[in-house]
């Protein structure tokens, strides 16, 4: 088994980590623990929550909300931010508004810019685009002062869609730039005094803007698919549903060329806990052994770390530190002997195709 530390040692230039998985598996706790461990190892670290509903403050048991980067009290070199979607959307909207206005002014088109801005900003995907834009900011500029950045992302599909969005973003920008170039060269060809127009063209704010956006975007894409710099970690529990989700998610991100860092298994019941306990826990323990065997069969080579089942919520610096310790050192006593057993395939049922 390739442990978490081995993975990190073999990726010395790792800068961006993402945690994903089914709801309720402990993504935020794992993101917090990874961030804590990196800071302890001497890396300046930022944990950024990009969720519509944040849990970082609850996990660290201190106030980290408000959308600004705050130092995590009690840990040197560790900072955190819970990105506020409303702020991000408002800023993104202002940005777009400014661009539209600048362009209309430059092009000498005397119309009210507001309806244009409204159309852009009420597009249903606007929130995601705004969030993605914020992530680009963190990757390219705001995160400059950090050696490592851990992104705590929302539910599985959201993270992937954020990346999926990057594809369309790129295509759209490429096309915009092309058509803008054409329009500008037309002006040059039609113009009576070419050199005069050429000067104008160089001042075109929209063109400059588009090119800048495009470069920014390409830079981020380059980072996201670079397996030396980026890794997606998936958190699962020893249960059928979370395992199924991780398997689906891994094939999804691989389709986007996103590097998979590995799988973390949370809430494993230690045998000594089950041995001394009542029937309730023993049943759970038995059930988990079967699922651990499935994890070994389905995801074995990707498993990087485990966290045992805790008696309390992860809601303080002490508990986060404990999760971090376990992620790097804990291995369930039965893991090595377990016979790998791939998940059974569900029987396929077909119905009447609904429209």
């Amino acid at each position, binding site marked *: 088994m390739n442990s978490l530390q081995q993975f990190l040692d073999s990726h010395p230039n790792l800068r961006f980590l993402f945690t994903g998985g*089914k*709801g*309720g598996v402990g993504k935020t706790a794992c993101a917090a623990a990874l961030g804590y461990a990196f800071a302890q190892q001497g890396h300046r670290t930022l944990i950024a929550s990009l969720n*519509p*509903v944040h849990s970082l403050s*609850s*996990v660290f048991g201190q106030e980290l909300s408000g959308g600004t980067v705050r130092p995590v009290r009690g840990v040197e070199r560790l900072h955190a931010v819970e990105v506020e979607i409303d702020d991000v959307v408002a800023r993104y909207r202002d940005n777009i508004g400014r661009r539209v206005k600048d362009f209309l002014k430059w092009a000498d088109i005397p119309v009210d810019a507001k*309806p244009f801005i*409204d*159309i852009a900003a*009420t*597009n*249903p*995907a*606007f929130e*995601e685009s705004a969030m993605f834009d914020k992530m680009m900011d963190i990757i390219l500029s705001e995160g400059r002062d950090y050696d490592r950045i851990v992104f705590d992302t*929302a*539910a*599985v*599909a*959201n993270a992937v*869609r*954020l990346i*999926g*969005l990057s594809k*369309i973003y790129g*295509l*759209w920008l490429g*096309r915009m730039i092309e058509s803008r170039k054409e329009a500008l060269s037309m002006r040059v060809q039609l113009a009576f005094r070419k050199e005069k127009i050429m000067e104008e063209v160089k001042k075109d704010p929209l063109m400059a803007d588009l090119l800048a956006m495009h470069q920014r975007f390409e830079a981020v894409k380059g980072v996201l698919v670079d397996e030396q710099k980026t890794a997606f970690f998936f958190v699962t529990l020893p*249960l*059928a*549903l979370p395992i*199924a*989700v991780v398997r*689906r998610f891994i094939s999804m991100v691989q389709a986007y060329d996103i590097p998979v860092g590995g799988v973390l298994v949370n809430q494993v019941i230690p045998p000594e*806990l089950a041995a*001394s*306990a*009542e029937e*309730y*826990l023993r*049943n*759970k323990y038995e*059930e988990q052994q079967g699922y651990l065997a499935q994890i070994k069969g389905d995801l074995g080579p990707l498993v990087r770390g485990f966290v045992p*089942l805790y*008696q*309390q*919520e992860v*809601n303080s610096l002490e508990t986060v530190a404990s999760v971090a310790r376990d992620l790097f050192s804990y291995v369930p006593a039965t893991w090595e002997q377990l016979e790998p057993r791939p998940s059974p*395939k*569900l*029987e*396929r*049922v*077909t*119905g*009447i*195709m*609904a*429209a």
Partner: protein
Amino acid sequence: MNEGLSAFFAQRPETEIVIFAGKGGLGKTTSSASLAYHMSQREGRKTLCFSTDPQASLSDIFERDFYGQGVVELLPRLHVIEIDADKRVAAYQAEVKQKILDMYGFERVPEEIEEYIDATSAEPAMYESATYDAMAELVRAREFDLYIFDMPPFGHGVRMVAMADILSKWVDKITEARQKVAEYDAIAATLKGDKGGDDAMLKELIDIRQQIKTFTDLITDRRRTAFFMVLIPERMAILDTERALRMFQELNIEMSGLVLNQVYPVELLDQPDVSDFLKHRIEMQQQNLRVIKEKFGDRIVAALPMLSREPKGMEMLAQISQQLMRPTLRI
């Protein structure tokens, strides 16, 4: 408090749509599947359980794979569907391409346009609207007595409703712009001496808006639609629930009640061999339960016990549904 969903449905016999919202991992899909089991097997209602969760967990819970297979009847009157949004988006793209071919009389779609249409499928909005369309279509067809929706975990699943609002505004804006253009076109056409034709595109937009409006009205109709939120006795969940309740209020949706899940029965403490682990857990939960009762006690419709096995398979769902309808757990 904690009278069960049976009492709720007795008071609200006209309920046709039930929506479970809340963060992922608390038991939304389990609650949806259990309620569908109960209504179809014990109350004889033709029920459709619809998962809008892109993680396809409904298939996992029922232990049958029906992802992307349309409406499937698993047991008499128990119908399920887990839509494959990708497939729907692809179908929509094919339709758009066909329209372009018909409109311009092309032999094949120009490469550039093709690329653009394909790229739009990566749009998150496409996914959501595909899911949304599927929901609206099913409800419109009126083939079932009861529709149960398991909401995706984006921002508590309430986004689906907010989305309707945003989409509607967007269509308004575009319609307005198109209408202006249509007026100019009509004037231009009159000047040129041909009569202004129908604007098919505008008509389509207005239709879409109508569909959205119908569905939003239904979802916010307190008589026909019930919204439940699932929470667990942990501090984090309490904070989230408070936030979600505020959000519901802003969207003018009535929260019908809360389902409290994963509660350790306090009686476990009386067992002779009780472990320290369980003692700690129960003590922590009891503290949080006090807060929950104080903050939203009157809204709790059902409290479900923590299970010792993963909730999946019909037998498990039959057991859970009994607790959901008539809880025996004391809180």
